[in-house]
């Protein structure tokens, strides 16, 4: 499952970041590393992008990119 499968307010642990290598590299540099806890905090009224909290800060991600962040439930 990916971040997109989480509902607003739900948390999970990152298991793998794939997709566009440039984006994956950037996300990992921001701390999207394996085993880190992420929480979906909000989604835009139009459904996209989503706000994801990780390591104490909020990041806006497009759905098509969030698709590439694999997570497992706690």
């Amino acid at each position: 499952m990916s971040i997109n499968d989480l509902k607003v307010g739900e948390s999970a642990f990152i298991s793998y970041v794939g997709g566009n290598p440039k984006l994956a590299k950037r996300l990992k540099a921001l701390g999207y590393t394996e085993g880190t806890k992420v929480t979906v905090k909000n989604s835009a009224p139009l459904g996209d992008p989503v706000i994801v909290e990780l390591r104490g800060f909020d990041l806006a991600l497009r759905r098509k990119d969030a698709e590439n962040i694999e997570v497992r439930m706690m």
Partner: protein
Amino acid sequence: MITAALLGNPNVGKTTLFNELTGANQYVGNWPGVTIEKKEGYFGKNIKIVDLPGIYAMDTYSNEEKISKQFLQREDVDVIINIVDASNLDRNLYLTYQLKQFNKPIILVLNMMDVAKAKGIEIDCDALSKKMGVIAIPISATKKTGMNELKNLLKSSNFFDVINDNDYQNKNESFSFKNETEIYRHIESILRECTKMAGSETITITEKIDKVVLNRFLAYPVFILIMFLIFQFTFSWIGQPLSVVLDALINDRFVPWLNDLLSGRSEWFSSLIIDGIIGGVGSVIVFLPVILVLFLGISFLEDSGYMARAAFLMDKIMRNMGLSGKAFIPMMVGFGCSVPGIMSTRTLESEKDRKLAALLVPLMSCNARLPVYALFASVFFPGKQTVVVFSLYLIGIVMAFIVGWIFDKTLFKKDEEPFIMELPEYKMPEIKSLLLHTWRKGESFLKKMGTVIFAASVVIWFLSSFNFDGLTDINNSFLSYIGKVINPLFVPLGFGHWQNSVSLLTGIVAKEVVVGSMGVLYGGDLRSVLPGFFTTLSAFSFLVFVLLYTPCVSTVATIKKEYGGKLMALSIVYQVLLAWIVSFLVYNVGGLVLKLFA
């Protein structure tokens, strides 16, 4: 001379620190080859501080990162000042680890100590200094604490031996990390030793504000209200009225005074000064108050943290024209005037967004086009003015989506940048920083006045005041020759009279000039004259052309100043082509439709 490179993540107070250290002693330029601002300043006489772009890492291939990396590698940097958000250390220290690879002394400035404290984070700076092999200094840039320690350290230049600090044994450990996960694990282990988390998590002010501002039902009403306020502030309440005052000062005071002064001079000379230079530059300089007020508003949105939320809300819509959410702002501003719209594209995250937005902004119908619409709508569409004017605005917006989509799939295909954006915590913007930013925009605008617009005004003046026999009126000028030569191009669009072509040419100075030129060229009351030269359909075709054709000199000059000659040429060429094609379709398809229903 000591060179210090200032680096840090975005939104950690880097600009505030830079302003605090260098004061008004700043020089703003551009990094070569890219549209990223380069800021340098001096602290005291001997320390040069270079403000590098805000980045999260050194190796994820963005232009900002490339610039920072090249600067650290190639220039003679003596010390790195790395500012970090103390309330968010793990992500911030990731960059610090990458900076260590450059083997320069690092001053780690822990900003927002007050915020960290409020979050219940306690940091042992001495322990952190030793563990990381850096000099850690806790500050709060907004509360002005810790600044003296930092300034004293810089003055004493007492940081050169830090690399050889005994406590930092494993000098090259940053090279031995296999991947991001390992670096983060290492940072986490250091933080476990040097920091204490107290108390449970409470709901922050930011979360409370976001509950309203990003609420499913309230988000867009709040967004529209804020945009409306900024727009009103700029174009109705403060900026525009000041412009009107400035305009009156120039035309009612300065010009008559100049007329007196020049009364003894030859006719061409006073015409050059008054019609050419004051007429051209003066008509643009009155935008200055609008630009200053607008940028005050934009800086406020930016510094307060709302801008990121606005970008978040608009992203899905803006993506259809190949842009990210933040590009909504330049577009909206474009409805007032393209010049500040294009200037504000600088605040966009990627090079691609900046350039594409600059190309699309002029499609938003600006205030200067309104006099043309108003005249034609009242003559040819009495009672339906609002519908006609509204349809023109709509055509502009639709064209921006179509052109944006095409450019995104062709010209900018390779420049695709993934979109990720931090939503910073809300904070009260700093007045000093707002004013500095606003002033800098005004300054760059004034510089442009002195160069490109000045030159263009003189050229257009010359073409409209001379022919081979010398000084003449516009009816017989070089410009009228050119108008007659290009006139056949407009026949298929339905308005092929040379007076129209010449008016359109003069409209390049500023679009509202089209009306004034028509008055001179048709020589009479336009309301009674125009119906002899236009049908209802060709009048609409003409309006569409005015909406879409080459942006005015000031706009073109702004594109050149911000993004160079190539993009300027592209902007001119594509808009002329677009205007021609759409007007052609309007006139010919419209003609067919009218015939069918007749």
